């Protein structure tokens, strides 16, 4: 899937990564719309995050839209969590996190490439950054839930080539709608590689199982953000369909042209062969015709040709005949 140009990403780069915001800041950024993160589903949380992200991108790109909550874009299951997390609320996840951390205080969370991550283990959810939370939630859940995706193992080696990998994983999993998020994610990669890798892997595997999950949430979001959400989504989808059709038409065109060329080549080859055959035959005929005529002419006088001594006259005549025939233009039409 294509990224919607570099504009979304560029805008976000200017905005800074939303994941650096703490929960509190995020809450205020949403204008109090995300009132109760604690009781919110993880899905809803993600939606809000992406909404804010997208609105930031749009706000940066189109200065007219000042308020982030005017244009919230829905993600139709393009980035989802494993089942274990999505149904849990933020509070529960947080409690688990704290519990997990308490149980193994000495265990540095495996995929944490940043040494400061452990220092950021704040007691309150509000003070924790989104990035931190998501990282822990995503990664920790993987460990506990025993999911098939080996996120921790992959995250570390993937850390160095951040941008490319994230971009490709985003592209892999993203549906029609997730282009903005993908662009945003790609830009946020330098700061949150682990998070996005985790999500990318997860979404790649669980996309099918979780696609119905976002739908019940759509209505809630829509009621909050207004009808413009659908329009943008619809526009994108239409554009993608048009592009697909155009690509198909282009392929058809190419194929038709090639078939035509092949047919012409075959025709011309046939033609060529026939013409060459004809030419050979024509030459043969000409030759034979000449011989024929010579024979004809010389037939009755063949005898005289032998009597050299006495018949000088007829001999000369025969020679003249021969010469004549040789220069006689043969018309075979």
């Amino acid at each position, binding site marked *: 899937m294509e990224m919607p140009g570099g504009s979304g990403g560029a805008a976000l780069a200017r905005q800074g990564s939303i994941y650096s915001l703490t929960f509190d800041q995020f809450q205020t950024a949403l204008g109090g719309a995300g009132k109760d993160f604690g009781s919110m589903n993880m899905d809803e949380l993600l939606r809000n995050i992406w909404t804010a992200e997208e609105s930031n991108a749009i706000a940066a790109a189109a200065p007219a839209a000042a308020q982030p909550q005017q244009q919230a874009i829905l993600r139709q299951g393009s980035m989802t969590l494993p089942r274990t997390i999505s149904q849990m609320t933020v509070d529960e996840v947080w409690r688990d996190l704290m519990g997990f951390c308490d149980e193994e205080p000495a265990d540095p969370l495996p995929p944490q490439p940043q040494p400061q991550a452990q220092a950021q283990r704040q007691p309150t959810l509000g003070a924790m950054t989104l990035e931190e939370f998501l990282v822990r939630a995503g990664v920790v859940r993987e460990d506990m839930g025993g999911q098939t995706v080996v996120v921790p193992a992959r995250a570390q080696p993937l850390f160095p080539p951040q941008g490319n990998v994230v971009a490709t994983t985003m592209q892999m999993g993203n549906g029609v709608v997730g282009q903005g998020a993908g662009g945003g994610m790609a830009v946020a990669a330098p700061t949150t590689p682990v998070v996005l890798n985790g999500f990318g892997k997860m979404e790649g595997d669980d996309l099918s199982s979780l696609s119905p999950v976002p739908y019940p949430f759509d209505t809630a979001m829509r009621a909050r953000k207004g009808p413009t959400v659908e329009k943008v989504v619809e526009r994108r989808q239409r554009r993608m369909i*048009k592009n697909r*059709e*155009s690509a198909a*038409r*282009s392929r*058809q*065109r190419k*194929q*038709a*042209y090639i*078939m*035509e*060329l*092949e*047919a*012409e080549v*075959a025709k011309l080859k046939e033609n060529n062969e*026939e013409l060459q*055959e*004809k030419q050979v*035959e024509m030459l043969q*005929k000409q030759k*034979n015709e000449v011989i*024929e005529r010579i024979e004809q002419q010389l037939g009755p006088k063949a005898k005289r040709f032998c009597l050299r001594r006495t018949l000088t006259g007829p001999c000369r005549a025969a020679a003249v005949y021969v010469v004549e025939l040789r220069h006689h233009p043969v018309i*075979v*039409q």
Partner: protein
Amino acid sequence: MSRFVDPLVVGRVIGEVVDLFVPSVAMAVSYGAKDVSNGCHVKPSMAADQPLVRISGRRNDLYTLVRTTWVHAPVAGWLPRSPRVVLLYPLVHIHAWELAADDFPLAWCLQLMTDPDAPSPSDPTMREYLHWIVMNIPGGTDATKGDVVVPYMGLQPPVGIHRYVLVLFEQKSRLVDGCASPPADRPYFNTRAFAFNHELGLPVAVVYFNSQREPSGNRRRR
């Protein structure tokens, strides 16, 4: 014979403009020096004037028949004895036959040119856009010998790459100018309906080419 038709099927000309048919007349279209073959690319600047549309021969199968007899006759003659004048006759005979094919009382032909991708191939709301109609073309000649019903209009593709289709029909009889009611308008033309209204039946030859608006800056070559 299907290989003559396959590019038309793949290019969706058969299906959108005409129905499946068997080509029976050879039609050669050329814009100046450039010969048009199915699916080739023509610049609108080259197609400002009407092309030269030459119709040759009656039926393709007749041609092949003539050709095979030409080849076989001499071979039969060579073997028995030295070649005599006998051989010449078949050659002359076949040539005469070929001439007769062209002079065959060929029904008149009607030829039209439309653009099924108007105004844009992804959104062909004005399908088809009529460019040209010539009728009463005597067989074996070209379109200049016919009567123009709708004068030729140059190519003006606004958006995207358009297909331009030239369709040749065989008329049952010579059409009087009055009875062949010219279509009122150029857009929203329908080739099938037109053929039905004038009892033209299936086409006998179809050629199509592509064209797109020339960008003001660079030149594109296909």
